[in-house]
């Protein structure tokens, strides 16, 4: 006997003790696929035959079965299952996971069972047990189908059992092995002429009678259903699609109108509304036999199709992820009628839950059913019913190209209940005010990035970021990027220094990077500027409709300015520089993301400077001055305080150096004119993320902006260095010495290519070499004291460097997803993860 088991499904073995279920299971299934009640009794009670543990054993069995079916994986239950209540629980379990339960019954004679049990010392129960089980089994046999088992097979002799050939067949919905390419075609509704014209557009050769066609280059059509009703030529449409299906050129899915027609044609009592009467008329005029052929064809259609390795799912009314590749009444209902609530709106149309809004799967879902003005990707789903029969268009999606092709309707065949144009034009439904779900960010997550493969965010990091993001960050629709942290260069051993450029240059040389750029490190605060050409662009591209046309955020995603007028003023200045520099056209974009430094630091950090930096300086200076004076007096008395006095004076000098260091970050800011902005990366625009351009391109673009507004934008000083050329390196070091001697913060060394790879993956996107004086405000006023400096050299950079690379990859990924117009939650995931990683405990002085 051939047993054809659907895979996945729940296989229930039924048979008395000794009927050979376990042997059968061992032969035909993987050990891990088989859940045995005896084994579960052993798990909970240390004895596979302890009948008192049966209830707990089945709880364990069902728990494991549920997890396997959720995966989904084929699962076999090896238990007697001769009683109806125990089978009912398994049937319900399979149904809860929208998979088929099937039964394999081993109906072997009492003699055989008893003979087998005799050979097993642990089965010394009396003959009445097996007899009772067989009686219950026979009582059940007839009703198995009715109990909900999709298929049942009965084996009634050892020979027959021995001869079983067991094969597994994928579910009908599982067409993952079919890679396409496909032309997915929306709701036709009897619009035969438009279908013929669309196929022509798609390159199909349609026969002159319009009833058959040949595809171009191995393509196949996938129809989302609703072939009939309301339109003028339902019969011709059916003839054509049946012919294409028969020729292997098309895969047809059922729509709700088709299902209703089937019910009518099967003689059920169906109300002749929504165009069904016209369809019946048209079929009545068609050649004889069409009605029956159409009935059988449509009746045999499978609810949905999973195609192309699981990357594409097509269903008439869409399908939520939990139902992909599964089969049950409710899966079919969802696929045909959508996610309805059972309520009706004021026009009598069903109220729908927005399953697409909640969709987070990776497979693209293509569907129709509800006419829309414009097909639009929402969370990897797209509705391509453009209301042809209502005078709209008939649309196809080319897969895997994801191109949309459509033809206009010849006329309006049927008046729609509500206007097709229900969405305000231009607003992306993915970017509404409430499209982010807490599940998009909370908990542990693993983010796939193009540059660094996967980045893992721990649950507690996410919890911290959740609070910060929701309480302090700007509107997430503006937040398309956060900058990575940057590691300092390896520690220098030079006397008096903690950092020096030679280590940075050596690092890149060792990593195989030939050319680097040394950029002046500005003395301000990091600022990410998003600027749009106007507020319409902000609305269309970012979904922000409050009239603003850009934003400036800090490195942690907060608004850079509390004052909205100042914020828009800064954005306006950047916009006008972009305009005068002609960058909109040069970069073919209407928006830009710029990475900048905003000066002075005191503009953002005046309170920190005053309360922390100045207060420490004032206290230290006052204390050390008084101490030195007292010690001088004591020395005057001949007391031996020389060493203490010398150290006190040296400390006072360090403190003066420290006060000078923070003072360089202060200048008065009375308004926007006192600010300076130094752009150094042009991160992204409509055409792409510019990580493929080297830093000289970025700096050239930034220079063009600076030239357009030289009084307000500040140029970034730079040196390009060949790390194998000693003269060039000397020149860069000399430049660094000159910058830092004047109190400058130092410089950042970056590989010339934006994202370069070495032997171990991405190299550091940049390392900073900070000046000796500047580090006083990081490591403390007296860090440069030789004794302290030696202790500080033992710093560990590993964690910071690893974070820098992961955050860099996440930031770039966020921009790339945004440029690809992926939904907000996909962009937000990356930005959120940068913030989450930043909550990691890393020495803040690095």
């Amino acid at each position, binding site marked *: 006997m051939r047993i054809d088991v659907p895979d996945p499904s729940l296989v229930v073995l039924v048979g008395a003790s000794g009927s050979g279920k376990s042997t059968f299971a061992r032969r035909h299934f993987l050990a891990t696929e088989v859940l045995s009640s005896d084994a579960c009794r052993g798990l909970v009670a240390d004895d596979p035959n302890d009948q008192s543990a049966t209830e707990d054993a089945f709880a364990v069995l069902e728990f494991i079965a549920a997890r396997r079916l959720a995966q989904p994986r084929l699962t076999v239950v090896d238990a007697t299952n001769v009683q109806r209540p125990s089978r009912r629980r398994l049937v319900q379990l399979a149904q809860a996971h929208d998979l088929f339960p099937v039964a394999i019954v081993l109906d072997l004679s009492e003699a055989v069972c008893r003979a087998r049990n005799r050979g097993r010392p642990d089965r010394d129960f009396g003959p009445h047990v097996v007899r009772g089980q067989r009686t219950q089994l026979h009582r059940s046999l007839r009703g198995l189908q009715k109990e909900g088992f999709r298929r049942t097979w009965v084996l009634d002799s050892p020979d027959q059992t021995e001869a079983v050939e067991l094969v597994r067949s994928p579910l009908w919905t599982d067409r993952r092995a079919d890679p396409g390419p496909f032309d997915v075609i929306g709701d036709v509704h009897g619009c035969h002429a438009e279908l013929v014209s669309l196929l022509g557009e798609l390159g199909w050769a349609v026969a002159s009678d319009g009833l058959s066609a040949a595809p171009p280059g191995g393509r196949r059509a996938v129809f989302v259903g609703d072939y009939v009703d309301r339109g003028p030529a339902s019969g011709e449409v059916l003839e054509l699609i049946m012919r294409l299906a028969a020729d292997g050129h098309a895969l047809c899915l059922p729509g709700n109108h088709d299902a209703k027609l089937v019910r009518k044609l099967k003689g059920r009592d169906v109300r002749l509304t929504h165009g069904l009467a016209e369809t019946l008329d048209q079929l009545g005029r068609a050649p004889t036999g069409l009605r029956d052929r159409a009935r059988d064809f449509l009746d045999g259609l499978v609810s949905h199709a999973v195609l192309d390795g699981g990357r594409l799912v097509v269903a008439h009314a869409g399908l939520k992820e939990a139902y992909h590749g599964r089969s049950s009444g409710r899966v079919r209902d969802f696929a045909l009628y959508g996610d309805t609530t059972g309520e009706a709106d004021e026009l009598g149309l069903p109220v729908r839950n927005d399953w697409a809004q909640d969709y987070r799967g990776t497979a693209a879902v293509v569907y129709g059913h509800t006419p829309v003005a414009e097909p639009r990707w929402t969370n990897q789903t797209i509705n391509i019913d453009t209301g042809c029969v209502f005078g709209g268009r008939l649309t196809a999606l080319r897969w895997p190209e994801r191109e949309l092709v459509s033809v206009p309707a010849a006329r309006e065949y049927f008046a729609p209940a509500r206007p097709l144009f229900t969405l305000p034009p231009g607003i992306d439904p993915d970017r509404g*005010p*409430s499209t*982010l*779900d*807490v*599940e998009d*960010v909370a908990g542990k997550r693993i983010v796939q990035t193009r540059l660094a493969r996967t980045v893992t965010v721990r649950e507690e*990091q996410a*919890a*911290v*970021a*959740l*609070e*910060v*993001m*929701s*309480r*302090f960050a*700007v*509107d997430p629709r503006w937040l398309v990027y956060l900058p990575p942290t940057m590691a300092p260069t390896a520690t220098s051993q030079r006397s008096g220094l903690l950092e020096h450029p030679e280590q940075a240059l050596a690092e890149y040389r060792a990593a195989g990077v030939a050319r680097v750029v040394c950029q002046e490190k500005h003395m301000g605060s990091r600022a990410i500027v998003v600027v749009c050409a106007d507020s319409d662009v902000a609305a269309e591209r970012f979904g922000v409709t409050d009239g603003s046309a850009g934003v400036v955020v800090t490195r*942690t995603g*907060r608004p850079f300015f509390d004052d909205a007028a100042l914020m828009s003023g800064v954005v306006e200045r950047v916009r006008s520089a972009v305009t005068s520099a002609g960058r909109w056209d040069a970069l073919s974009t209407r928006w830009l993301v710029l990475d900048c430094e905003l000066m002075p630091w005191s503009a953002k950090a005046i309170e*920190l400077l005053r309360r*922390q930096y*100045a*207060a*420490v300086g*004032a*206290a*230290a200076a*006052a*204390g*050390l*001055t*008084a*101490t030195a004076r*007292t*010690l001088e*007096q*004591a020395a*005057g*008395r001949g*007391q*031996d*305080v020389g060493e*203490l006095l010398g150290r006190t004076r040296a400390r006072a000098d360090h403190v003066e150096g420290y*006060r000078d260091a923070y*003072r360089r970050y202060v200048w008065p800011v009375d308004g926007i004119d006192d600010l300076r902005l130094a752009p150094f990366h042009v991160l992204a625009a409509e055409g792409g993320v510019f990580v493929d351009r080297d830093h000289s391109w970025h700096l050239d673009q930034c220079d063009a902006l600076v030239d357009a507004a030289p009084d307000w934008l500040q140029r970034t000083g730079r040196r390009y260095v060949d790390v194998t050329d000693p003269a060039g390196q000397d020149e860069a070091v000399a430049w660094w010495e000159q910058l830092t001697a004047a109190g400058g913060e130092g410089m950042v060394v970056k590989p010339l290519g934006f994202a370069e790879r070495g032997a171990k993956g991405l190299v550091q996107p940049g390392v900073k070499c900070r000046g000796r004086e500047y580090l006083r*405000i*990081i490591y*403390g*006023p*007296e*860090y440069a004291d030789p004794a*302290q400096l030696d202790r*500080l050299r033992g710093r560990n950079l590993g964690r910071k460097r690893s974070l820098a690379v992961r955050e860099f990859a996440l930031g770039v990924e966020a921009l790339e997803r945004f440029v690809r117009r992926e939904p907000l939650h996909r962009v937000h995931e990356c930005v959120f993860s940068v913030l989450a990683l930043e*909550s990691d*405990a*890393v020495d*803040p002085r690095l």
Partner: protein
Amino acid sequence: MLLTLTTTHRPATDLGFLLHKHPDRVQRFGLPFGAAHVVYPEASPERCTAALVLDVDPVGLVRRGHGSTAFALAEYVNDRPYVASSLMSVALVTVFKSAMSGQCRTHPELAATAIGLEARLPTVPARGGEALVRRLFEPLGYAVDVQSIGLDEQHPEWGDSRHVGLRLTAAVRLADLLTHLYVLLPVLDDDKHYWVDQTEIDKLLHRGGDWLPGHPEKELITRRYLKHEASLFHPALDRLEASAVDPAAQEDPEGALEERVLLRDQRLGTVRAALKASGARRVLDLGCGPGALLRLLVQDGYDEVVGVDVSSRALEIAARRLRLDELHDDRRDRIRLLQSPLTYRDKRLRGFDAAALVEVIEHLDPPRLAAAEVNVFADAQPATVIVTTPNAEYNPRWETLPAGRFRHPDHRFEWTREQFAAWSAGVGSRHGYRVRHVPIGPEDREVGPPTQMAVFER
């Protein structure tokens, strides 16, 4: 950091006997955080000065694990090595132990006598400024001279530092002067370098036993000296520059005033009543904070009470206060805490009968309020929603609230009655809720109640 002690009591050099430190010798004492030196810059029969010089090792101090603040670099860039704080107290009790306890074998009478003494400290961190310095030392009989220290002579516009130079003069026993400094320097600083535990209470009783009970500021001294319970400081949050808004303070920042405590109780009572009246069985407390309302709701027999807050710290405190881990199973099944921000959709919040948002919406930036609105009224969709928020018109009635300031530093807005009514009406019509408004607290004829409440019903 430096302390000088001067006497003009003749012969002044007897100061050396009282301190047990010879005026002609330089002495060094090792301390956990550096070294202390005692030197005498002047020593004549007319006038003698002893100087205690603390040489604090800044790096060593960091490695000992100093507490922290919202400023990530505070461990490295701070005033501790340079000012007279609790480190000075440690040095005093180490170096002048005998003198502090009034022992002097050679001059016992002098040790027991009030003599003319002057103490100078060039940098004292004084939270509370000159006024507090005077309130602390003047009742003990000192003439107090306070010199302000400018933050930065190049930036006079920045004003003065919280540090002051201090000179105290009095006829006083040396032991008393040292003890007063020992207790009051950390009180002025209000920031100890070590954690406070039971032994601190014993120390305070020991050192302040005879003078503290009569001091008019004894409560402040005790509170600051025994710096209250471990801080709620959360290092990870502070690395993200989250201004450390203490969730306990958030519960009611204006709680210091009796009438405001009363108002808080009235607010919680009113919300509690409105929830009962709604007939709800399963309720949400959205923005529950440390659980003030939850503690009432768990007594009201609901089938389920869920406290929701974005702050995991607040939820930890709430769990502790509700003693969640000690509840019996049947009660524990009826209360849950969830971390969730209102600005993200959360399916776990669906299917409840009622939700309360007590003093929550004003903590949301106006652009984010729209997202919270959709998530609560369109997605979670409880049949009843109760929202309370301050009535900005009432603010001038709070005498202690400076004009134009919000009631809490984290408030993003405070609405007038008209603004709140307009928002409520909009929410009602957008999401199909009926709205009624209920005043909370004493209703002023002109400006209305201090707190306004809206009850939305579907």
